[in-house]
């Protein structure tokens, strides 16, 4: 295998300790924990980073005088002036290109899209001008830019304003794609993104802007940063791993609470980073729980869940007690009518009603056995909706030296 030298890790940054798990509802308040909305978190992150580095500037529609279309940049124009908080005309291709060009020169732009749906007009600059330039120039020109804005569905905004772009940007080498859930995520990841020397796509969520989360003193410190590429285990569990990002983390946590009442202990992973994807954390979790459910708001085909599923199948196939379940948005453009819209997006009930999980757990009277004393064979009790593929795999495993070698690689 081809390996290249791993550099020494940079000086450690503050990371947030795991929020201590399970029993506690995640929004528990101690008298010392401050409440902060995601909006405030983003605003404070922008404020601090712009204060710390004169090269950081904000650019986008309504970011200045309007105080931000969603008030994320409230007060910044007053504090930093129109040179650093730049209101642009409604010309995404133009101002995104200008932002990337400024980053070429050495500034650190934060380009705001009113939603990522509009970023499609500028996607050539995000991918071809920003993501690929460091590679094409062999390191001569790097692009320290952040593209941020709301992503995914809002409420009742219709098909053209509701798409989730995590999978699209997540497939591009050269980009980093971050997607916060809580205020702590929002602050830490945005600060990390602005400090990062590479192009970062920062996918927020409009419906989360107003939600408040407790934040510790450490999170409020101006040096606070969350490492890029590390997922967070929001809730530890034993029976099933649920991966989610953005708003779906909240839904998954609610689902986990309900599942807990039925004796199913779900581990909820907040991905935080779509690219790089924290494969080690997800794999370690699945090797512990043996079951995986991926949750996302976006379209199912070629989605984030598909990539996670493929990754688990590659690295932890033998540890799976049941096929990976994907929960995603409906494979339709987003409808407007409230009932149809509700059907088009994953709801908490969808995450809970997982037939395989409940079936397996019931059969094994509450807790599936751990993997340690099992011989590495395909579990027999599984409903093979894999069908013929399953049997083909079995044959492949037993015949042929190369098949056995790969098998060994997976298991030993």
């Amino acid at each position: 295998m081809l390996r290249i030298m791993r550099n020494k890790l940079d000086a450690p940054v503050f990371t947030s300790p795991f929020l201590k798990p399970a029993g506690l509802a995640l929004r528990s308040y101690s008298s010392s924990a401050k409440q902060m909305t995601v909006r405030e978190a983003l605003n404070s992150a922008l404020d601090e980073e712009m204060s710390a580095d004169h090269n950081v500037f904000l650019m986008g529609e309504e970011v200045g005088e309007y105080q931000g279309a969603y008030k994320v940049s409230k007060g910044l124009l007053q504090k930093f002036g129109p040179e650093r908080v730049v209101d642009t005309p409604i010309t995404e291709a133009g101002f995104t290109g200008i932002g990337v060009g400024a980053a070429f020169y050495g500034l650190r732009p934060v380009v705001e899209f009113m939603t990522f749906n509009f970023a499609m007009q500028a996607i050539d600059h995000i991918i071809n001008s920003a993501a690929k330039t460091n590679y094409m120039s062999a390191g001569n020109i790097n692009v320290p830019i952040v593209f941020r804005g709301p992503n995914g569905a809002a409420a009742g905004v219709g098909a053209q304003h509701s798409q989730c772009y995590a999978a699209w940007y997540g497939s591009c080498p050269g980009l980093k794609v971050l997607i916060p859930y809580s205020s702590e995520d929002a602050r830490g990841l945005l600060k990390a993104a602005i400090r990062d020397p590479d192009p970062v796509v920062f996918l927020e969520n409009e419906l989360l802007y107003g939600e408040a989360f407790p934040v510790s003193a450490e999170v409020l410190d101006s040096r606070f940063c969350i490492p890029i590429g590390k997922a967070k285990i929001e809730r530890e569990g034993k029976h099933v791993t649920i991966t989610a990002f953005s708003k779906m983390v909240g839904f998954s946590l609610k689902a986990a609470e309900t599942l807990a009442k039925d004796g199913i202990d779900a581990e909820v992973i907040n991905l935080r980073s779509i690219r790089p994807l924290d494969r080690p954390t997800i794999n370690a979790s699945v090797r512990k729980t043996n079951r995986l459910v991926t949750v996302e708001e976006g379209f199912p085909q070629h989605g984030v869940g598909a990539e996670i599923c493929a990754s688990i199948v590659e690295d932890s196939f033998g540890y799976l007690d049941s096929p990976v379940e994907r929960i995603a948005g409906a494979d339709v453009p987003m409808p407007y009518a409230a009932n149809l819209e509700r059907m088009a997006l994953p709801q908490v009930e969808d995450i809970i009603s997982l037939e395989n999980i409940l079936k397996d757990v019931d059969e094994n009277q509450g807790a599936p056995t751990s993997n340690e004393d099992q011989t590495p064979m395909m579990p027999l009790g599984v409903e093979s909706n894999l069908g013929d593929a399953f049997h083909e795999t079995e044959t492949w495993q037993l015949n042929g030296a190369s098949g056995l070698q790969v098998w060994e690689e997976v298991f030993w």
Partner: protein
Amino acid sequence: MAQLTRRTTDLLKPFSAALSSTRLLTTTSTTPITVETSLPFTGHKIDPPSRSVETTPQELMNFFRDMALMRRMEIAADSLYKAKLIRGFCHLYDGQEAVSVGMEAAITKKDCIITAYRDHCIFLGRGGTLLECFAELMGRKDGCSKGKGGSMHFYKKDSGFYGGHGIVGAQIPLGCGLAFAQKYSKDENVTFAMYGDGAANQGQLFEALNMAALWDLPAILVCENNHYGMGTAEWRAAKSPAYYKRGDYVPGLKANGMDAFAVKQACKFAKEHALKNGPIILEMDTYRYHGHSMSDPGSTYRTRDEISGVRQERDPIERIRKLVLSHDLATEKELKDIEKEVRKEVDEAIAQAKESPMPDPSELFTNVHVKGFGVEAFGADRKELRAVLP
């Protein structure tokens, strides 16, 4: 009489400075000469500059040598492409050399240039070496982008050259972004964003121009109008092919792009304007002898007569040759010697580039990010080809 003078000059070279009756100017002299541009400038919402351009013998000789070098490089690239040593795209600039050379004469390396994919000569003009050019074209590790970019992706940030872009028109907003950054940093320098008559119709040009004008950015948009956008003539692509006027509220200037001095004057004028008043559009009326790229013969949409006509009447190197001869700065033979020297230099660079090895396989995974966080990246066979991004 002239011949006698010349011979005397040859013999008396060391004393030529003292003898005022023979060659007044040596090729290293910086005594100013004034030349007239071949055609007047045309202005749009601006008073055009004068046709008289100050130059020096040194500059004239440099123009000749630099353009001869560029011409020779592009012809050599043509042969290399046909020999299959260069793959993929190869867009040649021969015929347009005066634009690069004239521009460089008017600006410094602190000013920025950004262009599209016809970038070999611009890169050379910005200080790139022949070896870096040829090695990059052949995909070798001594190339300016270590072989990972190719013909369309030459860069040289330390000399203010920001590429080398394959997407038509994308370089214009990027160039306005460079100008934005220059203004933000209070640098007192300008950016030249170059594009062709094909790209002149791109929407993002007008989006970027609007913002450049709104914010008074020191951006100069330079349309290298070689009259063909790939195979489509300008009259078939643009309702209004007066590209210097397309800026509407932004002033424009049209110059003869085959005349290095006209280009120099226009760029000097534009730089002064941009630093005080914001964006300006320059249209350089130029011509490319080759087709759009090496896969285009260049003769299906224009006649060979047209091409040879331009070569005879308007060739930029011939214009300088005539100027050099008429100002008595060098003999025909000396100029031919320079061309031979240039040819030799190019041949040597090619030989050296051919020796350069291909990039190491580990380079597949380098430079994806500046900071890779130790993340894994995979090749086609995910078990075999993988690396950790540093």
